[in-house]
């Protein structure tokens, strides 16, 4: 446990320069945009005179040099202040915190579903490499891996929401239903079935493939032969020896895919009109709200770092050899 904490501490410190690169890089990328938030705002209210523009630029500090503003941004970041969204006329951190839970439900359920089903099916496929069952699952996972998630979302909603009417087409919960507690939870879960399935499939296929490949690798190792020689049952060998050792690469893959799952939720939230973090990114693009987009990118980078820390902890828990010594990244 102490080792694990040390590991987390070291990870946190080493991620600071990386996050700094993200902030500075994003800042200069968004500097390239023609016009700023004030221009976008003036257009949205139907035009204004030069004095108003000037005054607004002063209020938001947009009249200063880029380096000054970068410094201001970095210092306010230390106070968890991400600036002001001109488009929404609200503090950016509030907007993001308000939208994050919906994205967490979506991402968390999709990741959980993909991980559990992917690993189980991977064990089924990897238990007998080359068997008909393995072939079917391998081909199936390849096909699943090739389906664009937003298109899968549309197809699922055509079939299950429009035709069969089993699930709602959009939203995160029934609007103004006044539901609370368990009823509200079930309502949200009901709304999330289709988007979670659409987002999870590609990762399910990925985890299946990694698990199967890992098992194929472990089957060749000496301790498996030893376990066979001891006369252990096949079931026990598959689960306790092979699958257990093949699980580690899948956990690593989970951390590697955190950024991609977050990116995928942007499109899925748009397909199912879920008011989450990803949809906020799309709204920021539509409103040309550069500071909001910047805040979203910075927060998503922090989230990915946090997910990777959790994955590291899980990894250290599963594999006692890790902990004191650094895992090669």
């Amino acid at each position, binding site marked *: 446990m102490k080792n694990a904490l040390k590991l987390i501490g070291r990870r946190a410190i080493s*991620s600071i*320069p*990386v*996050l700094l*690169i*993200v902030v500075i*890089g*994003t800042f200069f*990328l*968004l500097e*390239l*945009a023609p016009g700023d938030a004030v221009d976008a705002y003036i257009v949205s209210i139907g035009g204004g005179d030069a004095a108003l523009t000037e005054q607004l630029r002063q209020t938001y500090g947009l009249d200063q040099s880029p380096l000054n503003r970068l410094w201001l941004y970095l210092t306010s970041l230390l106070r968890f202040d991400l600036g002001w969204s001109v488009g929404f006329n609200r503090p950016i951190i509030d907007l993001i915190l308000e939208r994050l839970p919906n994205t967490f439900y979506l991402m968390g359920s999709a990741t959980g579903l993909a991980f559990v089903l992917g690993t189980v099916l991977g064990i089924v496929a990897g238990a007998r490499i080359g068997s008909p069952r393995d072939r079917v699952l391998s081909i199936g996972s*390849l*096909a699943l*891996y*090739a*389906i*664009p*998630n*937003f*298109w899968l979302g*549309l*197809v699922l*909603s*055509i079939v299950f929401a*429009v035709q069969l009417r089993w699930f709602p087409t959009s939203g995160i919960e029934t609007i103004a239903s006044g539901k609370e507690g368990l009823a509200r939870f079930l309502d949200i879960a009901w709304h999330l079935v289709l988007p979670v399935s659409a987002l999870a499939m590609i990762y399910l296929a990925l985890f299946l493939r990694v698990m199967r490949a890992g098992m194929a690798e472990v089957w060749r190792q000496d301790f498996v032969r030893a376990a066979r020689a001891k006369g252990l049952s096949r079931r026990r060998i598959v689960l306790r020896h092979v699958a257990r050792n093949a699980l580690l690469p899948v956990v690593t893959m989970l951390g590697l895919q955190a*950024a*991609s799952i*977050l*990116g*995928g939720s*942007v*499109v899925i939230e*748009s397909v199912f009109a879920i008011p989450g973090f990803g949809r906020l*990114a*799309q709204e920021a*693009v539509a409103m*040309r709200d*550069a500071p909001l*987009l910047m805040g*979203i*990118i910075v927060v*998503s*980078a922090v989230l*990915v*770092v946090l997910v*990777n820390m959790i994955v590291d902890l899980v990894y250290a828990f599963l594999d006692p050899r890790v902990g004191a010594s650094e895992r090669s*990244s």
Partner: protein
Amino acid sequence: MSALRRFARSPEGVVGFVILLTLASVALLAPVLFPGDPLRIAGAPLIPPFTDPSFPLGTDRLGRDVLAGLVHGARASLIVGIAAALVAVLIGSIVGTLAGFAGGLIDEALMRVVDAFQIVPGFLLALAFVSVLQPSLPIVILAIALGAWTGPARLARAEVLSIRERDYVASARIIGMHPLEIALREVLPNALPPVLALSAVIVAGAVLTEAALSFLGLGDPNIVTWGSMIAEGRAVLRSAPYLSIIPGLALVATVVGTYLFGEGLTAMLSRREQHS
């Protein structure tokens, strides 16, 4: 020649090759098969597929030929997919080679930049990049490559770390070759094969990212893409779902073809390693 034969012996690779070859010929012949702008109105709106012989796959809600769009869309998907992967592999292998070969502070600095690109969701980065620089084909290609070059960079670096200790690199050093020349002319070409095996996965990812970007309306507005066709069909999802389903099937076929082709490449390269 034997490398080709090894590829031909992998059934996945052959199937993938046939799919990609078909797609590429369709894409190349698009201006001949369907001359004129695929975005122009060609007939009555919302003709269902397989009913009118002059529009085998029907028309969309503005009366544009779906089959013409599909064929022209193949060009956009393939161009973006291949170009983005090329740029990503090029940037990635150069950065990876330099980092692995230089070592020390340069390695440390370059790898932190790789880390930074890896913790930002590639799709979000592409979204920001395209929205800042206005959507056009080259910008979309660059935006996708920005999120995809870190994989090749890491792989190239790992390869270089093992290659740079070999004898021929030491001899190049002894005859007084410039370190940069050694890195780019001696080490990089030898580090490339495993990176190339990864490129099929990158092409597939790029095709999917391009589709998602144009689905969200961030593709080049002047060309027809499968993503924009799917987005178009959304407006009439209830009455004419085929408009969104057809281009999606084309996407799935392209990506499956690319993955299978990649498996063939991997089989080809891994068998070579066993021989040496």
